[in-house]
């Protein structure tokens, strides 16, 4: 059940044992990453396009606050002004070239420069997601290994029960329950990302500490619910590896217990896990908006939800998704390189 073979087709490109080969490998992966990014941006841009009502319509409707009738001519004029009358591919191309330069244009509804509007928000979201990811694997790795190897049914079952509970409790429920308890018994709603005094303050150590004081809850909630999937992966991989002959051989040589698990099957099982980290990040980011909505976190996730659900702000939504995709693709690229460096088998396949 290994996902080992996944990267194989791309890894057969190398020739001689040479640093040059490695560089070529890295360059190929980088090109692949960019192609994926472009592909995803096309998918996303198309999806945005499919949503009924374009930016001009929505903006005029939004601004049409006191019921004065807007005419079709007004909408056409606004459309021309925003360049929405150009062909689809032209718009996508110009949007994409802007996006690679970090210029996402203006938000459709708020009429604010998106780069400015997002500011630190995307980074905060990303760090929350990465924090959750770390937490999830910090739980899943030991529990998964124990669960696959241990003969103690009670320990095994109870550890799994707790980990899977994170999956069974939908995170919006979990978030609200934690808030309710905290409000009623401790008088603290645990909402927001910053205390009011730091909300508009420039970054400082104190502001960072304040952020950590608020961010632990979303990290905990997202991390717990991500644990279940991570645990299933770890458990499956470990089960596969433990049954293999080299483990038996190592055991025959007298290596046993934790040392055996960590040095052999766990190290091998780590490969596919590292490889899929990017997609785990995506999965966590998908859950972030809901948690953010409840905890009133003003970061990119809730902004995305608002842009999509409330104001149909395609420009803003597109920018956030592009950034997220870029983050995932970068992470995938980094893990590929990392694997090639640390895993002799992969290295060998490149430098063959």
């Amino acid at each position, binding site marked *: 059940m290994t996902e080992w*073979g996944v990267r194989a087709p791309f890894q057969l490109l190398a020739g001689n044992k040479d640093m040059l080969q490695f560089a070529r490998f890295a360059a190929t992966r980088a090109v692949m990453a960019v192609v*994926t990014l472009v592909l995803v941006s096309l*998918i996303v841009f198309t999806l945005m396009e499919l949503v009924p009502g374009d930016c001009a319509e929505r903006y005029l409707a939004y601004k049409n606050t006191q019921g004065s009738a807007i005419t079709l001519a007004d909408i056409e004029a606004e459309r021309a002004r925003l360049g929405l009358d150009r062909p689809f591919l032209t718009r996508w191309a110009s949007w994409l070239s802007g996006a690679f330069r970090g210029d996402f244009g203006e938000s459709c509804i708020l009429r604010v420069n998106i780069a400015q509007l997002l500011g630190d928000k995307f980074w905060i979201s990303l760090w929350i997601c990465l924090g959750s990811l770390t937490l999830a694997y910090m739980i899943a790795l030991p529990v998964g290994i124990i669960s696959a190897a241990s003969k103690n049914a009670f320990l095994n079952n109870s550890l799994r029960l707790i980990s899977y509970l994170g999956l*069974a409790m*939908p995170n*919006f429920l979990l978030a609200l329950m934690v808030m*309710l308890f905290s409000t009623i018994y401790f008088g603290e709603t645990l909402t927001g990302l910053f205390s009011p005094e730091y909300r508009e303050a420039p970054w400082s150590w104190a502001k960072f500490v304040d952020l950590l004081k608020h961010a632990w809850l979303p990290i905990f909630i997202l991390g717990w619910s991500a644990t279940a999937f991570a645990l299933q992966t770890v458990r499956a991989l470990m089960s596969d590896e433990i*049954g293999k002959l080299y483990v038996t051989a190592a055991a025959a040589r007298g290596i046993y217990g934790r040392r055996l698990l960590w040095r052999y099957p766990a190290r091998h099982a780590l490969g596919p896990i590292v490889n899929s980290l990017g997609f785990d990040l995506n999965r966590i980011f998908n859950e972030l908006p*809901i948690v953010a909505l409840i905890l009133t976190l003003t970061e990119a996730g809730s902004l995305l939800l608002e842009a999509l659900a409330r104001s149909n702000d395609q420009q803003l939504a597109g920018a956030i998704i592009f950034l997220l995709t870029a983050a*995932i693709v970068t992470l995938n690229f980094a893990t590929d390189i990392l694997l090639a460096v640390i895993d002799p088998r992969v290295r060998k396949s490149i430098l063959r």
Partner: protein
Amino acid sequence: MSAKTSTKIDDQKAKEAYFTASQRQLIWARFKKQRAAMIAATVLVVLILSGLFAPFLSPYDPTVAGRDKDYLNGAPQIPKFCDKNGCSIRPFLHTVTRERSLATNFRWVEKINEDERRYMQFFVSGDSYKLFGFIPGNIHLFGMDQGYVHLFGTDSAGKDIFSRTLHAVWTSLQVGTLGVVISFVLALIIGGVAGYYGGAIDSVIQMITDAVRTVPSIPLFMAIAAFIPPEWSAETRFFVITLILGLVGWPTLARRVRTHLLTERNQEYVLAAQLCGAPAGHVIRRHLLPSFTSYIIVDLVISFPYVVLSETALSFIGLGLKDPVNSLGVMLQNVTKADVLLNYHWYFIPVLFFIALVMAFVFVGDGLRDAADPYSETRK
């Protein structure tokens, strides 16, 4: 796991059975030995049955049409056999009068009339329904001779939470099954093609798969949901949402299928079939797929709770099913209120069902995975 205390002859018989058993029998034999998985499987079967027969098992229509207008936000009523006036074989409830006002903070205050009994009846005729969606009926397992009985209490409109829960389990099972089946079919086709042909086709498909996995699903849902015409009925909308869940869920599974195929296709028996001139479709269907059916079943069971969970998340952001519809996602949303946490604890009963359902699937999935792994026996 458990020590065997049988005679030699029995042992011999068992061995014989073991070596002649089919793969399915072997998996079942190994599965049976896992206590946690067996418990989970029992829970799962009970839940599936109660969902399947929800219209019959539940006493009332789960929509506002079946509401009890005299028992809004009412606590669960447990029928009893005895009271101060003596005992009865037939379980009964006491008549309750309720009122509320500003003085009671708008909470219902109940007065129980211990002298008036309402008796429980079985196989009563009541709200009409369609079992499995097409068998019409109006017989319910139980009911009262007068008034209503609410085992799990009622919500603020007076809808019976017991009835709602059973119907919700059914809805969620449907969502899960449909979603899993759709993504499964897609995964088989896409993963099958990639894995069987390999090479350039595989590379291209892998790239697309990776791209799809990279697209965040929320905007995908939003875009598709915007297309759902508002005049569609709750059922149609529900079907489309399941479809979406399936359409989004395939890449992980497709990747697994592909990996299996990549390893299997180089085996000798495949080569033999190819040499005999079997077409690609035939080889995939008749030779390759059966080789890892067990893995696929495990994957299906494991992806099930994720589909059910996605439905609850969709409901929450306003794209999924909404309150008049009975799904576990909708019921879950109704408990996210301070008022419920403090005062209406019985709203949480459906949550327990939801957790039980998800946990049962996950544990059965784990159990099946271990059972399907031929080495698990030797290890434990």
